[in-house]
C-alpha cells in the first residue's frame, strides 16, 4: 500500500520553515544582537524620567573644542575609509547587435546548405540530429559569406562581417548613452577566431576617429569566456586611471570558421555558432553613477589548462583531410562542471550569505572529521543572486549548470531563450541574456546578476553585477520585436 504523501509533505514544509528561520537568524545576526540593546535603552530612558535626562545632558559639559575635535575625527576617519576603497566600476549601458532578417538561417536552410556543400550523408544526418536537439530556433543568423554554397570565407568577407556587427552595436551604444567617440579612454576588444592585422581595435579607432592616446587592447583566441576577461582587464585599467571610461566589444566572427570536413566532433560548432556582438560602456566617473545601470562587484577567473583533459576538450586542429575545425570532446560537460566547481569555491565566500557559508563550512568539517560519507553541501546560490546569465553554449551546458546549481526553469530562462533566438553567439551571449531579463521587466534596483562564461582553455569566468536603478522595459534592443513571444517551450527534439 503506498505511503500517504501528507506526512512527507508536512515534514518537508516544516524543514522548509526551519531552513528559512535558520537563514534569517544567521544573516541578520548582528541585528539580532542589537535588538535587546535597542529595547533596553528606551526603557531605561522612559523609567528615568525627563528631568533626570536633562540633568544628565547638562552634566556632560561639552565645550566647543571637544565638539569640533569629535566632528573632525569623524570626518577624517570617513575620508580615510572612502579614499582607500577601490574605485567603483559602473556599467553605464550596453548594446547588442540585432542581425538583419536577411541573414536568417532556419533549420531547413541550414540542412539544405549542409547537404549541398558536403555530400557525405552520414555527416549531414549527424548535423540534422544535432540541430533538432540543439535548442536553436528558426531566427538565428549567419553572416552573408556563410550563405554562399560553398561558403566564401575570405579575409575581406570576415572584415565586412566584423564591421557590420561591431559598428552596429557601437552606433546603438552611442545613441543610448550620448557618448562621444573622442571621450573614450580605454578600448578592449575580444574576438576569438578572427584576428587580422591591424587588429579589430585599430579598425574601431579608424572608423570612429578615436583619440591617439587611447589605451587599446585586442584579445584573441580566448574562447567564449573572453567577454569577462575583457571586463576584468577594463576593470583593472579603470582602477588605475581616474575619471575614465572604457568601451568593451565582445564578438565572434563566424565567416572564416565554417568547417568543411566530416569529422563529427568538429561539426558541432557549425550547428551552434551564430553571429552576434555586444558593446559595453564602463566608467568610474562619479557623474556616471547616477545614470549607470549596474555596478561591477566581482570578477573571478578560473583556468583549468593545467589539466590535459580540460586543455584538449575544445581544440582547434586539422582533421585527416587537412580541414581546420574546432573539435569538442565528449567529456566537455564533465569538465565544465569541474571548472564551475573551482570557480564557485572562489566566488562563494564573496557572494554567499553567512547562513550558506556556515552550512557549507560545517558540512565540510563534518565530512573531514566525523563521517566522510556525508553528502557535500551545495550552497544555494539563489540566495545570493536574483538573476543568472549562463553562457548559451548549448542546451547540454545549460542543463548541466541548472542541475549543478539547483536552479529553477525561470532562472535559466534567459539562457535558453537566447540560445533559441540568437544561437551560440560566443562571448556576447551573456549580454543578450541580460537584455532578455531587462526586456521582460524583471530587473529591479538592488538585484544581483551572476554572469558565467565558459571557454576553450578550459576557462570558467564569472562576473557579479548589482543593479543600480530599476530598468524600464526596453523599447529597442535585440529583443524589442519578439519579447512578447517569449518564453517559448523548446521540445527535446524538434522534427521539421
Amino acid at each position, binding site marked *: 500500500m503506498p505511503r500517504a504523501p501528507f506526512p512527507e509533505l508536512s515534514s518537508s514544509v516544516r524543514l522548509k520553515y526551519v531552513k528559512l528561520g535558520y537563514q534569517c537568524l544567521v544573516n541578520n545576526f548582528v541585528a539580532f544582537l542589537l535588538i535587546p540593546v535597542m529595547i533596553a535603552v528606551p526603557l531605561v530612558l522612559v523609567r528615568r524620567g525627563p528631568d533626570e535626562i536633562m540633568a544628565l545632558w547638562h552634566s556632560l559639559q561639552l565645550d566647543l573644542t571637544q565638539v569640533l575635535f569629535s566632528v573632525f575625527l569623524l570626518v577624517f*576617519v570617513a575620508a580615510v575609509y572612502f579614499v582607500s576603497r577601490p574605485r567603483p566600476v559602473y556599467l553605464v549601458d550596453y548594446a547588442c547587435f540585432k542581425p538583419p532578417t536577411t541573414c536568417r538561417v532556419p533549420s531547413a536552410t541550414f540542412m539544405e546548405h549542409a547537404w549541398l556543400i558536403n555530400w557525405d550523408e552520414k555527416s549531414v544526418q549527424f548535423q540534422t540530429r544535432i540541430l533538432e536537439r540543439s535548442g536553436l530556433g528558426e531566427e538565428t543568423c549567419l553572416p552573408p559569406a556563410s550563405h554562399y554554397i560553398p561558403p566564401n570565407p*575570405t579575409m575581406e568577407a570576415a572584415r565586412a562581417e566584423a564591421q557590420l556587427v561591431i559598428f552596429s552595436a557601437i552606433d546603438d551604444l552611442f545613441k543610448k548613452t550620448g557618448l562621444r567617440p573622442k571621450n573614450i579612454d580605454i578600448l578592449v576588444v575580444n574576438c*576569438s577566431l578572427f*584576428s587580422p592585422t591591424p*587588429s579589430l581595435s585599430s579598425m574601431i579607432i579608424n572608423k570612429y576617429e578615436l583619440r591617439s592616446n587611447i589605451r587599446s*587592447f585586442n*584579445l584573441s583566441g580566448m574562447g567564449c569566456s573572453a567577454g569577462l576577461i575583457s571586463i576584468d*582587464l577594463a576593470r*583593472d585599467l579603470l582602477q588605475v586611471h581616474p575619471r575614465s571610461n572604457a568601451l568593451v566589444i565582445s564578438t565572434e566572427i563566424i565567416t572564416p570558421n565554417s568547417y568543411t570536413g566530416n569529422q563529427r566532433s568538429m561539426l558541432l560548432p557549425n550547428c551552434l555558432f551564430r553571429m552576434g556582438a555586444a558593446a559595453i560602456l564602463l566608467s568610474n566617473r562619479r557623474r556616471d553613477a547616477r545614470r549607470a545601470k549596474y555596478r561591477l562587484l566581482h570578477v573571478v577567473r578560473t583556468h583549468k*589548462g593545467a589539466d590535459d583533459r580540460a586543455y584538449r576538450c575544445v581544440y582547434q586542429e586539422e582533421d585527416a583531410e587537412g580541414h581546420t575545425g574546432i573539435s569538442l570532446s565528449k567529456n566537455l560537460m564533465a569538465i565544465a562542471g569541474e571548472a564551475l566547481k573551482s570557480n564557485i569555491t572562489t566566488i562563494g565566500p564573496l557572494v554567499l550569505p553567512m547562513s550558506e557559508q556556515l552550512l557549507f563550512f560545517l558540512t565540510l568539517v563534518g565530512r573531514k572529521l566525523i563521517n566522510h560519507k556525508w553528502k557535500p553541501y551545495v550552497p544555494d546560490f539563489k540566495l545570493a543572486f536574483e538573476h543568472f546569465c549562463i553562457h548559451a553554449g548549448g542546451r547540454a551546458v545549460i542543463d548541466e549548470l541548472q542541475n549543478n546549481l539547483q536552479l529553477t526553469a525561470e532562472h535559466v530562462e534567459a539562457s535558453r531563450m537566447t540560445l533559441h533566438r540568437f544561437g551560440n553567439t560566443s562571448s556576447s551571449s551573456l549580454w543578450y541574456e541580460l537584455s532578455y531579463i531587462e526586456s521582460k521587466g524583471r530587473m529591479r534596483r538592488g538585484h544581483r546578476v551572476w554572469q558565467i562564461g565558459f571557454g576553450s582553455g578550459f576557462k570558467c569566468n564569472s562576473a557579479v553585477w548589482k543593479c543600480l536603478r530599476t530598468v524600464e522595459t526596453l523599447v529597442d534592443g535585440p529583443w524589442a520585436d519578439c519579447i512578447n513571444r517569449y518564453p517559448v517551450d523548446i521540445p527535446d527534439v524538434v522534427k521539421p
Partner: protein
Amino acid sequence: MELLWMIATVLFLYSSLSFLWKAFDCRRNQNCYLLDYVCYKPSDDRKLSTELCSDVIKRNKRLSMPDYKFLLKVVVNSGISEETYGPRSIIEGREESPTLDDCDDEVDDCMHSTLDELFHRTGISPGDVDVLVVNISMFAPAPSLTSRIVNRYKMREDVKTFNLSGMGCSASPIAIDLVNNVFETRKRTLAVVITSESIAPNWYCGTDKSMMLGNCLFRSGGCSFMLTNDPSLKHRAKMRLKCLVRAHSGANDDAYSCAMQNEDTDGRVGFHLSKSLPKVAVRAFTENLQALAPKVLPVGELALYVIRGLRHRLRRSKETKAYAGTAVRVNFKSGVEHFCLHTGGAAVIDAVGSALGLNKYDVEPARMTLHRWGNTSASSLWYVLGYMEAKKRLRRKDRVLMLSFGAGFKCNSCLWEVLRDLEDGGAWEDSIQAYPPQSLVNPFMDKFGWVNEA
C-alpha cells in the same frame, strides 16, 4: 572625559598612520621591475642564407623575372646577414601550404625554449606566476597560446592570462602597459610576457610587390621576459620602468591602411606595406615624442627647447629664406643614454636615428640586430637590448629608451632605468665578438650584385 580623549587620540593616530602606510605601500608596489629576459635563438639548421632565400623565391612559379630581380634586390640590400632564421616549414619547402602543426611547432619551439631558460635563470617556478601575457600578432589558435603555456607549465587556476593578437610590431610596449596596469591594482605580483611573431602561416605566395617585402624582411625570433612589482625582488632586477607612452594614429585612413593584412587580386593573403608608410611613421613618431619628451627630458633641456623654438620663430618671421624648412631639434641624448630602435629595416633605423640626432654608436645596436636577426617584429627591441648588454654598455643608472612602430598605425615607447651593471651575453653570446663587422654589405653581392645594375 579623560578616557574619551584618550580613545579619540588613539583613533586619530591609528587612522592617520594607516592612511600614511597605505599611501606608502601603494607607491612601493607601483614600480615595474624587469627581472630578466631571454631572447630566442633557433637551431642552426634554420638559418636562412641569401642562397636559400633565392631558392625559396624561385619556387614561386608565378613570379616573372622582374619580380624575381626586385625581391633579390630587396634581400641583398636589406642589411640582413646570412645568419638570420626562418621557420622550418619554409626551409623544408612547405611555404605555400603550412599545416596547423607547422604553426604550432614554430611557436612552441620559441615559447618553450625561452620560458624554460627564463624560469631556470630566475629560479622562479611557473606555479608562482600571477599574470601571463602572450603577444603574437598573426597567429591566434583556439585554445589560445596562453592556455598552451598554462597547460605545459601547469600554472595555477587563478593565473590571469591575456592573449594579445593583431597588434603588430609594436606590441611589446603594449604588453608591458597591460602588465603595469595590473601591477597597480595588486601587490607582490609576478608577470611573464612572451613576445614573438608567427612567420610560417604568413608566407606570401602571390605576385603583389607590396606584399612581398614582408617575406624578405621578417625573420623568426622571440623573447620571454619576467616583470614584477614586488619590492623584495628589486635587488635581482635588471631594470625599472620609468614611463610608457602609446600613440595611435589609426584615426587617419592612410595610417590605418598603410600596413595591412589583405587578400591580393588573386585571393592570396599577404601583408601589404604601402608607399605612404614612411610618412605615416613620421607622423606617429612625432606624436609619440611630443608626449614622451616632457616625461623623459630634464627640465633644462625642455627650457632650452622652448627658448630655441621662440628664437627660431622670431628669426623665421624676419628672414624667411634662410630659415624656411628648418626645424628645432630636441636633444634626446640629454635624458637617455641608450636607444633600442625597432629593426623595421635599414631605412627606418636611419630615419629614426637622424630624427633623434643619434650618431653611429647610438644606432649600432639596432643596425647590428637587423644584420644578425633580421626584422623579428615585436621582439626586436629585446635583441637590441641584448646587444647592448653583451657589449657591456649598460651601467647602473643608465636610461634606455625602447621605441617601436606597428600596424594600426602605432608608435609606442617606454623608458627604463638600469638598476645594476649588466653583463649577460644571452642570445648574442657566441656572435658578439664578431660585431660590429667590417662591412654590412651582403657577402652574396658578388653573386647577386647584378640585380642592382639591371
